[in-house]
């Protein structure tokens, strides 16, 4: 470690699986926490998530698992057995935070709910990240990325009015919830420093996504109005449009005057009254789109981005591909990528740095763990088991 970690006084047990919980625990690890990932004997189901290194669906080669679990040591433990539960409690006694993502009620059912953990360690912070939270009529409903998206309100305004609602690509609701898991844990730790008491933190993925609808949601409760999806024609400003080698989005504002924008697109027709404000541009959408499309059909994405941003101070975006992002000079300048050497995958570049902190920056220490990689280390050093004990525990399917 070159610099101190903001959380280097914190020990975390990460018993979560998938995306949201592991991402939350990784953020804590990136900022210095000692995170031990506790997996069932079959491994975190996240190990089955594509993409895989060289398309080989091996339990150690999920690239998704890799990026979500850097900086953690890994042990296996069967929490369904009473011996496993006992060992878990021994670990809890020495830790500050437990991050979990099981269905509400599951930890209680195996005697590891917050009340039980609090008895062992009154300072423990239990952070639970679930689809709908710990309480309420939907708390035991089965969730999925698309369900969180639908039931948060955002899908009703995404896509076009002439088609079905559209979800965001990838797994944004779970990335978002990971960050919320980390921040609520951090605030709780701040509180704990003051009161010397732990508590149970309850994060709901549905609510995380809903809380981003800062225009749409209050629109109804303040005025009764319900927005819908945009029309498919008249994409104009603010939506994706094609160019020679890809796509772009353009908006008025930034540091550009309307004159600047007209010069950029090189078509005086844009000065006409019918394009003077946002509403009119939507009303005359088809024509407006036509002018833009014609103006950009022979222009390339990256060239337009540079020119619009530097010469005309426009708000301008280009639809970058994963390849573009992998090679992006801005991301390089911000040290976004981290070189990692993984015991099975080998050397690989991983998206890593979320933001900068001058005294306690995020730091890479170790790659994601192979399944049970640190069993011997953790069980013999942190707890008092011998190597012989571990062989027996493996044969009994406890670890």
């Amino acid at each position, binding site marked *: 470690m070159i610099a101190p970690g903001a959380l280097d006084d914190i020990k975390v047990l990460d018993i979560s699986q998938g995306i949201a919980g592991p991402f939350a625990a990784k953020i804590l690890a990136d900022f210095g926490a000692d995170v031990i990932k506790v997996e069932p004997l079959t*491994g975190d189901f996240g*190990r089955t998530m*594509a*993409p895989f290194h060289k398309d080989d669906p091996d339990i150690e080669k999920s690239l998704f698992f890799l990026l979500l679990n850097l900086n953690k040591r890994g042990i296996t433990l069967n929490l369904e057995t009473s011996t496993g539960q006992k060992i878990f409690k021994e670990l809890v006694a020495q830790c500050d935070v437990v991050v979990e993502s099981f269905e509400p009620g599951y930890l209680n059912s195996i005697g590891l709910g917050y009340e039980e953990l609090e008895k062992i360690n009154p300072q423990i912070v239990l952070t639970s990240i679930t689809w709908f939270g710990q309480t309420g009529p939907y708390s035991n409903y089965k969730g999925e990325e698309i369900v969180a998206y639908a039931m948060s309100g955002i899908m009703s305004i995404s896509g076009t009015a002439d088609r079905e609602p559209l979800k965001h690509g990838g797994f944004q609701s779970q990335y978002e919830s990971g960050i919320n898991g980390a921040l609520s844990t951090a605030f709780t730790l701040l509180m704990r420093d003051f009161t010397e008491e732990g508590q149970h933190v309850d994060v709901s993925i549905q609510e995380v996504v809903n809380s981003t609808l800062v225009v749409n949601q209050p629109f109804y409760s303040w005025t009764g109005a319900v927005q819908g999806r945009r029309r498919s024609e008249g994409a104009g400003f603010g939506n994706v449009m094609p160019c020679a080698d890809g796509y772009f989005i353009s908006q008025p504002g930034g540091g550009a005057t309307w004159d600047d924008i007209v010069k950029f697109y090189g078509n005086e027709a844009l000065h006409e009254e019918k394009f003077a404000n946002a509403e009119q541009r939507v009303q005359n959408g088809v024509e407006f789109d036509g002018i833009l499309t014609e103006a950009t059909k022979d222009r390339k994405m990256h060239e337009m981005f540079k020119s619009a941003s530097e010469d005309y101070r426009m708000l301008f975006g280009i639809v970058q591909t994963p390849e573009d992002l992998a090679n992006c000079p801005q991301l390089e300048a911000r040290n976004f990528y981290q070189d990692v050497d993984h015991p099975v995958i080998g050397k690989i570049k991983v998206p890593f740095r979320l933001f900068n902190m001058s005294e306690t920056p995020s730091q890479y220490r170790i790659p994601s763990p192979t399944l049970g990689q640190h069993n011997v280390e953790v069980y013999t050093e942190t707890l008092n088991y011998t190597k012989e004990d571990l062989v027996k525990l493996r044969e009994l399917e406890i670890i």
Partner: protein
Amino acid sequence: MATTALDNIRVLDISDGISGAYCTKYLADYGADVIKIEEPNTGNTTRHMGPFFHDEPHREKSLLYFYLNCNKRSVTLDISKNTGKKIFLELLVEMDVLVENFQPGYLEQIGLTYEELKQKFPNLIILSLSSFGQTGPRSSHFGNDLIYYAMSGIMHISGAYGRSPLKHGHPQSYYMAGMTAAYTVTAALFSRLTNNSGQQIDVSLQEVSTSHHYNGPTRYSYTGAVESRATKIEGSSFKGVKFEGIVKSKDGYIGASSQQGRQRPLFSTYAEMLDIPELSDEKFSTNTGRIENAQELDEILLPILEQWNKYDYFDKTMSEGWVTGVVQTPEDLLNCPQLKNREYFIEVEHPIIGKITIPGEIFRLPNCPWKFTRTAPLLGQHNTEIYCQELNYNKDDVIILRQGGII
């Protein structure tokens, strides 16, 4: 590459545990192409049984798994799901043999029956290993080595009189069943040459264990007599004498004995060889005499034997025609000059474990020799190879199957 006995035979081994794996080890070692089907995330239970390489419990470091599974390939598959079941049936199309040890009734539970398999694959040899067989009132019971051994009758006559019955060291019943199963498979393959049909072989582990106990049941059915464990030391059976059993040597244990081949020479000859004149006494010259005077015999002889190094005793007595034993440790076996001369061991290299010495060829068939082709597979190591090259899936399919928990 030299051809060997089972070069063109294809085996699908979906068993879990030692007996099925040991059976298919014989087949693989003699050229059969054996594909193991293992549970997707943890693999066979034997991967989690010690001893482990450097005492580190890890699914790729079990030395037991390693020994049992050289020469085989591994795929992962969950046949309890529709998608997995379909792939299982696709794999069977090209197979000659299926080895399984499901609990009787399990296949029905997941929507497959033996009838269906026989109908779809009439040439398939199905080897079904189970605790108590496919039929009978105990067929659904669970068993293990201790139970098979106990129920075979051998345990009853093992151990000392006056103490509880004693189990054999090492779970031998699994190995006995595996070896038995291997020859039944080859018998069925042979039979198929003439009658062009597969069959289901029903092997019960309890019956295999029982069949090794030839003496007791036979004696009872002829005479009504029930054998028991060895009598007390002061008693009347020749087994009671400590000498003739396992006794201490200076550096271990030996099986001292005064037998030469099937004959028993004069006991005084044995005493002379060891230079113990007191033992040439008349009273020790007969079997009865030695039993009656067992305590005195032991008091004279045993302390002297305890001065011998085990191999000195063994080498001397054996080279003079006596039939003696030496209790060899695993280390002794690895250094055994006889085994070395017979090239019993072989050194191989495994991607995780590294270089390691394992038992190799245990009997010689010069025209169809034992073959080593690969070390034990990593879990699911051959998923892409088998599903894409032998079945018609592509890489994307395999990735989807993995994500869906099918493989």
